[in-house]
């Protein structure tokens, strides 16, 4: 929690990105292509956020990059699978 308080602006950015993603999904529920673009954009933004955050925090390592990528890809695969089946 100390870490979150220290980097509050970072987390505000992250929450803003994620909330924008959810909002876009709700507002553009009729446009599957747009939803897929939003999903990719949010996943990429999430990974970039991780890289920038850890770089600033001076603990950016290759395994950390892979971790953000793994989480983002897993989320993306699930969302794509569902969008393509709606």
């Amino acid at each position, binding site marked *: 929690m100390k870490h979150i308080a220290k980097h509050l602006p970072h987390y505000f950015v992250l929450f803003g990105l994620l909330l924008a993603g959810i909002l876009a999904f709700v507002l553009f529920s009729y*446009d599957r292509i747009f939803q897929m673009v939003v999903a990719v954009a949010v996943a990429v933004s999430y990974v970039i956020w991780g890289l920038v*955050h850890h770089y600033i925090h001076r*603990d950016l390592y290759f395994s950390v990059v892979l971790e953000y990528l793994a989480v983002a890809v897993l989320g993306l*695969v*699930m969302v794509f699978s569902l969008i393509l089946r709606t």
Partner: protein
Amino acid sequence: MKFIQKIAHLFIPRESNNQKAKLLHNSSLTLITFVFILYQLLISFVPRFAPKILGFAANISPDEVVALTNNKRSEAGLLPLSLNSTLSQAAQAKGADMLNKGYWAHVAPDGTQPWAFFTNFGYKYKYAGENLARDFSSASSAVEAWMNSPSHKENLLSSKYKEIGIGVVEGNLVGVDTTIIVQFFGTKYADTFPIAPIAEVKAANQPPSVEETKTLVSPFNMTRFVSLVIVGLLLFVLIIDGVLVTKRKTARISGRTFAHIAFLGMILAIVLILKAGKII
């Protein structure tokens, strides 16, 4: 004892997993992703080998579709559409054509346009429109999908249309049992001033009203269920991980647990938001 150790190794940060639940290791996340992709491939190929297993079929009443459509129109201050049996026959024929030829589109693979069905049944239109929907589990969800799409909503709430026809077909579309709803909108040439006919065919969806659903195994629901289980499990493990690592003040090289929770929380929300049913 060994089993408990293994579970702890998977879910709790400890020495055996380098102070990070094994489930959250990059290798585990990658494995989960691959297994999920394989699962999706399996669902996609099942219809080829075992038809009649996957799909979603529903009993949809055309009258209810008309009623829902007219409700939306009255809310918008428009006159209701009157049900035209010729249009309904044409819509039924369009639905049957999609099942027979195995396509899901406004224009058939052989180039047949939607309005060809209007004229084939002797409906001489000035204005014509088409909305298509499939796989909806309830009337309300389909209507909402329809109203949320500007192009479909435009069809639904167009003052140019005076009549409506509904076709509901159930059958096997490319290996998956489904229910297709075809909604035709029209205004007869005779009902208007004699100007050159204009065909305005737009993609439309339609509101299916489901009286009783008979679910086979819906690929969408299967995918959603598995997604919810995976995301739920990972969130659970991440929360445990976050609490224990903070409490123990463990120093380790890792991504931010809180950020992962936030991202997967968004994925969870999206999984819950997405609904079955296609409209074109």
